[in-house]
């Protein structure tokens, strides 16, 4: 309940700010972006984050699960460590590196966002499965479940909340990172922010930053609800008991 109140207050603040600045119209010698501009750039922003997230999920979840299999488990420190290095590079630098490698444009921005968003998904998929009590797996195989049955009926349902949490973290972080994508030729709300920076108009910067923040908290809220919905009931009971 308290979470919900904070969510509504923050969302109201950021949307209110956006509407207010857009309403001013003229800021010094500059004119503010119109609501049509804002809607278009929000759409572009969301598109970049969405595409990058879908690719990161499509790669990260199966890869993370695969790394828990006995055949590949030896590779897991290298893969997860390697992807972790990617996340150690400041997001600004990672995006800047994309330009010399892939040139400017939409796709280099997507690739940068994908790399940046991959780690939380990959790591949570791996950890979600690895952290299952080994006794549960032993009981399952001792009763005659095949490897596939254990994966489908036991491991995946138990790891699902953790995997979803990774997807949520990754997506929300990328809403912020995507604002930098404009540096390598991406689009989105970053354009508005940068315009404000170059024109030294704080209000214009805020006109791009406030809807970016609003998008992040809305996505966070939606993904949290999905995470909650995908958590098996037995685990919710367990969590309540554990905390209460």
């Amino acid at each position, binding site marked *: 309940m308290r979470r919900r109140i904070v969510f509504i207050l923050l969302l109201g603040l950021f949307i209110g700010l956006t509407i207010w600045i857009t309403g001013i119209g003229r800021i010094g010698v500059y004119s503010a972006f119109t609501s049509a501009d804002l809607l278009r750039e929000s759409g572009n922003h969301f598109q970049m984050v969405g595409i990058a997230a879908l690719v990161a999920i499509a790669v990260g979840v199966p890869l993370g699960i695969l790394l828990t299999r006995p055949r590949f488990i030896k590779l897991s420190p290298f893969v997860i460590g390697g992807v972790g290095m990617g996340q150690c590079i400041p997001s600004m630098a990672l995006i800047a590196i994309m330009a010399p490698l892939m040139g400017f444009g939409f796709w280099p921005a997507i690739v940068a966002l994908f790399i940046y968003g991959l780690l939380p998904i990959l790591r949570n998929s791996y950890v979600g499965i690895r952290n299952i*009590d080994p006794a*549960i797996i032993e009981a399952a195989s001792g009763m*005659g479940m095949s490897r596939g049955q254990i994966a489908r009926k036991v491991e995946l349902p138990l790891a699902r909340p953790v995997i979803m949490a990774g997807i949520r973290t990754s997506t929300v972080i990328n809403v912020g990172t995507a604002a930098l994508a404009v540096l390598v030729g991406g689009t989105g709300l970053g354009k508005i922010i940068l315009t404000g920076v170059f024109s030294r108009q704080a209000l214009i910067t805020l006109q791009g930053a406030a809807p970016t923040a609003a998008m992040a908290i809305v996505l966070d809220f939606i993904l949290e609800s999905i995470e909650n919905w995908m958590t098996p*009931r037995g685990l919710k009971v367990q969590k309540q008991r554990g905390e209460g």
Partner: protein
Amino acid sequence: MIKLEEVAKVYPDGTEAVKGISFEIQNGEFCVLLGPSGCGKTTTMKMINRLIPITSGKILVDGTDNTKLDVNDLRRGIGYAIQEIGLFPHMTVSENITTVPRLLRWAKGKCRQRAIELLELVGLTPADNFLDKYPAELSGGQRQRVGVARSLGADPPVLLMDEPFGAIDPITRERLQDEFLRIQGEIKKTIAFVTHDINEAIKMGDRIVLIRAGKLVQYDTPAELLSRPKDDFVRDFVGADRALKSLRLMRVKEVMRASPPTVSLEEGLSSVRKQMESVGLKWLMAVDDERFMGWVSWEDLGKGEKVRDIVIPPATTATPNTPLNQALSLMLNSAIGNLGVVDDEERLLGVLTFDCIRNVIVEFQSEGEER
């Protein structure tokens, strides 16, 4: 029937966990694999359902070499319960219990029926209260019962149990052990049960396989293991209080004094005094129409007219099937020091005195020394 022939396990790093063990578990027999930590008892058990692959030797389950069967088919035919229980937290109690039946594609109604049956068997009643609960909503003891019920899911003839009562508090453990013995009396499974607890082994097992450092040291009934330990290791392992432990194996009816000296409630105290003098005892047992009413003691004879006036009601009684160790602790807790033995309808069957128990222990010790 489970038969192990020269079973050995060598790990790739050269560790010899099991060094050629052979024994047989007959149908319906409760066999305990006993030994110190790391002796290879769990490894031995896990080779039966192939959770650990065998290095050499042979394991026959009901006459079939267990490596000749599909591994999942083999396991679905063998019940499996472990110390950590390993209940599936995202499944209800009923789903947990019917794991194997569902793998075997039993019809839904039959699964539910089976879940109810098993919950009743393990004493979680009324079953309706438990079917749709999640493991997190149960106490530790209840979870352990569900674990046992799950291992019996598809009514397998063979059960493997790896310290299934190891992680529970002593009182609950004792109760679960008693209940499981009662269940085993009904279902008569062929059981391989791993424990490092000698008391549990003596209490539960028809036979005990004592293992040390991957080798079978002694395979015997609990009584034989206690009275005739094969070597110093066994003697040390079963402990210096072997004689006391052996009390657990005997029941009151085997050592009690039948037809004890009795008097009726209406008897006058002067004739009671004579009776005591003639049998040479300082006490008699008061009965009313065969029912045990209490004790009459020499010190109280001057305090009334009739037995009824001075009878001391029994604080506690034993039944013919009470294990001697329990009877002994009842005696230690009662002021009289003797224990009346009664049947279900309180009819007096006999008396247990310290002398009875001393005789048993003396006999036990001389028996052990004969060898």
